[in-house]
Structure formats: C-alpha cells, structure tokens
C-alpha cells in the first residue's frame, strides 16, 4: 500500500518540512527561492521602483494581518485599517501632542497596544457568534474611528492630519530594507502558524465551524487568538506606515477604502495562504501606482476593483496558489 500515512522511520528534518511546507517539488522550491532572491536584490535590478516596493512591503504586512483572521476563518473584516490606522495615529498623536522627539521604542509598543485594544473591541463581542456580526462591527468600527479623528481634530489634525512624524530615512535603498526585512520576518512566523495545526484549525473553522467544534476544539478561543496575532501584525505595520510617510491623514492610513484594499490584496494573492497575500501586495501596489495609472487617477481604481471582481468570480483561490499548483504539476505531480 502506498499512501502518505505509511511513513514509519521518516527522518525528523523531512517530517518537519513536510509538516510546515507540504511536499514542494524541486521546481516549486526553485521558484520560491528565486522570488525571495528577487525581493532581496530589488535595489540592483529595479532601483527606480524602490519606493513602490517599500510601500508594497508594508501593504504585504497589512494583507497578512487580514489574512490570518479573515482569510483563514472566513470571518470577513471590512475594517482592518482601523487597527493599522489606530496604530499610525497613536504614533502621530504622541509625537504631535506629547513630545516631538519621543523615541520609537516608546511609540512603537504603544502603537501596537492601540491596535490590540481596538481589535479586542471588535472581536470580543462578535467572534463568539457565527454570522455577519463581525463584518458589521468592523465596518462600523472603521467609520467611527475616522469620525473620531475629525471630532478630535485639535489633537489629530483632522482632515489635514499630522506631519510631525519622523521619516525612517531618505535613502531609498535603506527604506526598502527597513520595510522588507520586518515584512519577511512577520511572513515567516505567520507562514509557520498557517501551516501548523493552528492554521488548519482556522481554515476548518472557515469551512465548517460546527464540525470542528465537535472535535473538541474551542473555536472561539482560536478565533480570538488569530485575531490577536492579526492585531499585533496590523499594529507593527501601522506604526511603520506612519514613519514611512512621515505624515498621517485619514485618507492615507484610515478610511474604509484602505481596509477594502487589504481585502483586495488577499483575494488577488490567495486567501488563507499568507504567502499569497505577500505576493498579492506587490501585484496590487504595482498595478495601482505604476501600471493602471494609464487609465487616469479615477480609472485606475475602477480597473482595480474590476480585477478583484474577476478574481472573486473566476479565480477564487487567488493567483499564487494557482501558479504554485501549476509549477507543482511540472514534474508530473502525484495525483493532483
């Protein structure tokens, strides 16, 4: 008999890679390696796009943060920019109102804490319930936070925002690595989580929550845990975005459109895979800021949303899982 369940005496290292990475063939390993190498060497082959790639790295963090909860469990958040925006505004408000020279080792943890607190306000009332409650709360949450920014305009700068945040660096190459490295580290952690028991349980919750509850798994606890990981990720990304732009306005970091961009990136890249949304972020940001600009400032958005619709209807799994399985079948993959 030859199925993958007869594997007595399998070497530990092999078992570990199989547990966490599946069984990629040599072409898949090669393409993943090439992609990683390409990202690490962008300054040498695409120097003029460094700013765009750096921005895409931050958006990759956001998309992964969305994906670990919404992409895995199918509890769709329409308000994740409230978490990242809340973190960005925490950095901004501290610098703007308390002390312009406040060190990052103070503002950064506080910003992440803000994302967690906002996240818990969303999650605790809604995640114990199935159904659309979570989506409604997240949607309302981001609208409320945006409104609060206007109401407390004397502290937040209102529509014009806060410009006092220090930028990371003016050297584009450094800027790129400052965003890429944290993104890859977060990505590595979340890929391991996604490929572990936890990720499988979260995806099973997305497919059939009642069934997985009857296996003895406390689904509410797992959802809250996933959301906490998501909030921390959004907090890191949000604080980074504040320093990336050096200014914070509702429309660049907070409004609901930013949340929907995160959804779009995860959909294009491949929901529930973590690695997919990373790639999706680069595809989306490059389309938005470089390619689709030929349609004009409004037309590019129309084109983008139509592309996302195309994916939802015709390629639900997203582009990267599709490519991955195509490459997987090059060597005459097993039975798929």
């Amino acid at each position, binding site marked *: 008999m030859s199925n993958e369940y007869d594997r007595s005496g399998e070497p530990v290292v092999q078992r570990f890679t199989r547990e966490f990475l599946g069984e990629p063939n040599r072409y898949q390993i090669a393409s993943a390696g090439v992609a990683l190498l390409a990202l690490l060497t962008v300054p040498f082959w695409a120097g003029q796009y460094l700013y765009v790639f750096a921005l895409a790295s931050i958006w990759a963090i956001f998309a992964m943060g969305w994906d670990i909860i919404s992409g895995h469990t199918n509890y769709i958040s329409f308000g994740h920019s409230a978490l990242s925006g809340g973190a960005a505004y925490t950095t901004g408000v501290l610098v703007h109102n308390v002390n312009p020279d406040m060190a990052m080792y103070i503002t950064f943890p506080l910003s992440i804490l803000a994302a967690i607190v906002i996240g818990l306000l969303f999650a605790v009332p809604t995640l114990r319930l199935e159904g659309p409650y979570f989506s*409604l*709360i997240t949607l*309302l949450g981001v609208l409320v936070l945006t409104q609060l920014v206007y*109401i407390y305009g004397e502290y937040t700068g209102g529509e014009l925002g806060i410009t006092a945040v220090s930028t990371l660096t003016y050297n584009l190459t450094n800027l790129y690595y400052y965003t890429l490295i944290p993104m890859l580290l977060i990505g590595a952690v979340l890929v391991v989580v996604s490929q572990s028991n936890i990720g499988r349980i979260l995806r099973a919750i*997305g497919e059939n929550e009642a069934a997985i509850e009857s296996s003895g798994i406390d689904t509410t606890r797992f959802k809250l845990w996933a959301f906490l990981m998501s909030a921390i990720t959004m907090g890191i990304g949000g604080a980074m975005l504040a320093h990336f732009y050096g200014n914070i306005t509702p429309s660049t970091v907070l409004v609901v459109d930013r949340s929907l961009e995160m959804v779009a990136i995860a959909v294009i890249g491949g929901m529930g895979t973590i690695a997919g949304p990373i790639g999706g972020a680069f595809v989306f940001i490059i389309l938005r800021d470089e390619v689709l600009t030929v349609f004009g400032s409004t037309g590019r*958005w129309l084109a983008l949303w139509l592309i*996302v619709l195309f994916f939802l209807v015709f390629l639900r799994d997203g582009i990267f899982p599709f490519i991955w399985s195509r490459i997987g079948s090059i060597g005459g993959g097993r039975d798929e």
Partner: protein
Amino acid sequence: MISDIITILIVGAMISAIYALIAIGFTMIFGVGGILNLTHGALLMIAAYAYFVTQPYIGRAGGVIVGIVLAAVASYGVYMGLVRYIEENVVITFMATIMAALALQEAMTMAFSQQAQVLTPIMPGSVAIAGTRMQYDQLLAFVFSWVMIGMLWYYVTNTKDGRAILATSMSERGAIFTGVDLPRVRRQTWLIAGAFAGVGGIFIGRLQQTSPEMWLEPLTLAFMIVIIGGVGSIKGSIIAAYLIGYIETLTVALLGAPYRVVVALLIIIAVIMYRPEGLYGREYLE
C-alpha cells in the same frame, strides 16, 4: 421644550421612513437567499443620479420613475450578472458585492466627478407643522414609504408570486417542497429590493446629498437595521428603522451630527451582546 420634542418626533418619523425603505430590500434579499447584498447602497446612488440626469428633460415625476426603474433593473442586473454565479459561496458573494459597489462608485466619479450634486426638489416648497418647518419632499418620503410598505404587504399576502417570496424567506426547504420556483423567487426579490432602494435613493439624494460616496452610509444603516430587527424579518426591519431613525435624530439634537455613527456603534454592540438574534430573529428549529 415641548416644541423641541415635537420637532424630534416629526423629523425622526420622516428620516425613519426613508431608512425603512432602504432596509426592507436588504432584508428581503437576505431572507430568500441568505445573501447580504453590499451593492445595496450603490443602487440608491444609481437612482439619485438617474433623477439628477433625467429630471431636466422629462420632468420631476419622470425623473422619479426613471430612477426607481433603473435601480430595480440594476439590482436585477447585479443578481443575474454576478451574484447568480457565486451565490453558493456566501463569503465570496459578500466580498464581491462590496467590490462591485466600489467599482460603481469609481464609475460615477468618472461620469459626474467627486463633487456632490444638488437635486431639484420633487415637490418644491415647505410647510410648518406644529411649528416645525418641513419640506414637502420630507413629507412625500414619508407617504411613499408607507404606500410602498402597504403595497409590499398586499403583494406578499395576496398574490401567488408574493406568497412564494414570503414562504421562501420562512423556510427555503419548505418552499421547495411546496413547489416554489426558487430562481424565479430570487429574481423577483432582487427586482423589488432594487425598486425600494431606488425610492430611498432619490429621497436620500435629494434631502442629504448625491455624490459617488453616498452609498456607504445607507449601506451601513441597512446592515445595522437588519441585524437589530432580526435578519430576514420585514416587520423587524421597519421597527428597527424607526428605532435607529429616532436615536439618530436625538443624537444629532443632543450631541451633534458627528456623533451619529459613534452612538450607532454602541447600540449595535449592545444588541450583539444581549440579543444577537435581533428583535424578530428566530432560533432555528431542527
């Protein structure tokens, strides 16, 4: 003091009537297919712009009719052209409908710019009721709302097609057993929901604003009202629409307009914590 209370009572009734129009279509679509149609707000926008464009040529009544018809047709189109192919996956439908709404927002921006447009009054003039000055259009919205609710009630209780819709929203399985043509019920529901959204959209566009971003607020209102009323329940939606309408009117009077959405969030959290099935939600039988 007394006159303030009367003002709140009257203003609240007018705005609630429009909210009921918006929420009914949203809840009907959920009732017959389990779908939360997030393009619903964009249908309002389509009706408002249709009135804006056609009214100078074909008059006010003509503009209203074109607006309603176009919203109904657009709703039907969203179902036949998009939702029908993906409705078996609720989550995909959920995301696709909001992406479609965003696409419509950008299309409207390209056609009419970001600028908010001012709509010609449907019935110009105003009248003082108990010391409160009301535009005729506000009263007209109230009348339209109840006339349409009455027509819907007649339709679902006294016509064959209407009863099929009602039966489907109570139990899809039961409806199939009694020979209801489910695809037909869904098509009709989307058409009716679109017409309701069209009426709501023209009045929102006329009394608040007509802009490419006008879809979001009514959408969140409809979403909230439906959760509070109990998903799928038309009666619950009407009552919840008045609840939200009055609470908003009070919030604006006491705290100021910017706090509307803040109070709304607090209410919805309270509902979710203490009565997640809503006012008229039902616990599922086996």
